[in-house]
């Protein structure tokens, strides 16, 4: 399958956002201990994001500033949309202030910035 760079970046963004939404919700429910005990078969969004990152050039060094900004803002927007949907439905204890820090860490970990 042909995997063009833009498509790979899109997939990376989707999986990164899912991974961080998951992290924010884990903190919100304060009861993720049991949720993660037996899901070893499920491939995680973090694994998938990493897989796509490894196919995006440059693989071993940060991307150019314009790409970083684009990826970061799209991830943040996706996360906010997911979380705000829940908040508007009465989901309490979701801390939106966590998003920026989590995104920065994730992008560093994935060698995006």
């Amino acid at each position, binding site marked *: 399958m042909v995997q063009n760079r833009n498509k790979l970046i899109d997939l990376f963004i989707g999986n990164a956002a899912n991974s961080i939404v998951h992290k924010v919700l884990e903190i919100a429910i304060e009861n993720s201990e049991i949720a993660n005990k*037996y899901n070893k078969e499920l491939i995680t969004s973090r694994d998938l994001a990493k897989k796509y990152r490894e196919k995006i050039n440059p693989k071993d060094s940060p991307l150019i500033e314009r790409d970083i900004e684009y990826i970061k803002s799209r991830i943040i927007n996706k996360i906010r949309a997911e979380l705000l949907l829940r908040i508007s439905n*009465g989901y309490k204890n979701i801390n939106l202030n966590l998003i920026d820090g989590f995104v920065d860490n994730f992008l560093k970990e994935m060698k995006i910035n």
Partner: protein
Amino acid sequence: MVELIARISKGSKMDQVYLPKNRSGFEIGSYIVIKPLGTERIIEKPYFYNIKDIEPVKAQMINEIFRIIDKNIQDYENAILTGSFLDRGFNFNDIDILLVSKNKVKINDLINKLEKFTGIKIHIIILDNKTLINGLETDPLYIMMLSKCISKKRLIYKIKYKIDYKLLDLELLKSKLLIDNFDYLDGNEKYYFVRNIIAIYLFIQNKKISKEIVDKKIVKIFNLKGIDDLKKNKLDKVDFLKKYKSFYQQLFNLILKGIKNGSK
């Protein structure tokens, strides 16, 4: 040597000794010696849950696994074998073991010994009884996992589902990945995402959950010829994704409604 302890029961014309179907060795047609037990030690028999039959070689391995655990771990409450190892055939990657213990257990040495004996990757989850019960009450994957298992000691749990919509939201979120990543996932990866979503659905409906029930439901909901259509990645992408997205959205709405109503 494989030993079994059984009791002689009274028959009409002849008395008899019944052998359990799930046993290692003692194949039909083989000759055996019967002798009184006397003062010989009693060998513990594991408890089989929803396993109709198992290959003799696996049954023998299971006995030895329990023996190795017993020898190497002090003070644990139970050991439970589960996962694809218990399915018919040899299409499994590892052996899943749940070690129930209230104490911290060092398992590296145990894993090495078990892997050396079996030649198969060993995956051990350690948890205390309270966490196990909590998992069985709130987590569909736990229920599915323990719907088919072999346990060293009898499992006595009266489980009533406790629906925690926030926890289910977190679990459901994982299955969202199938939509965006469809082209990049293999059949088994897709299967686990779909299995997850169906288990959540059955849980919310307060229905019984087992791997077989979930597989049947998948085939029905997504109109497949069989579960292998999914596992072997032979899906009609457009048709499947249309159904999957719709099913996901309905389930997500149901969960959001549950969160909104403040149910836990």
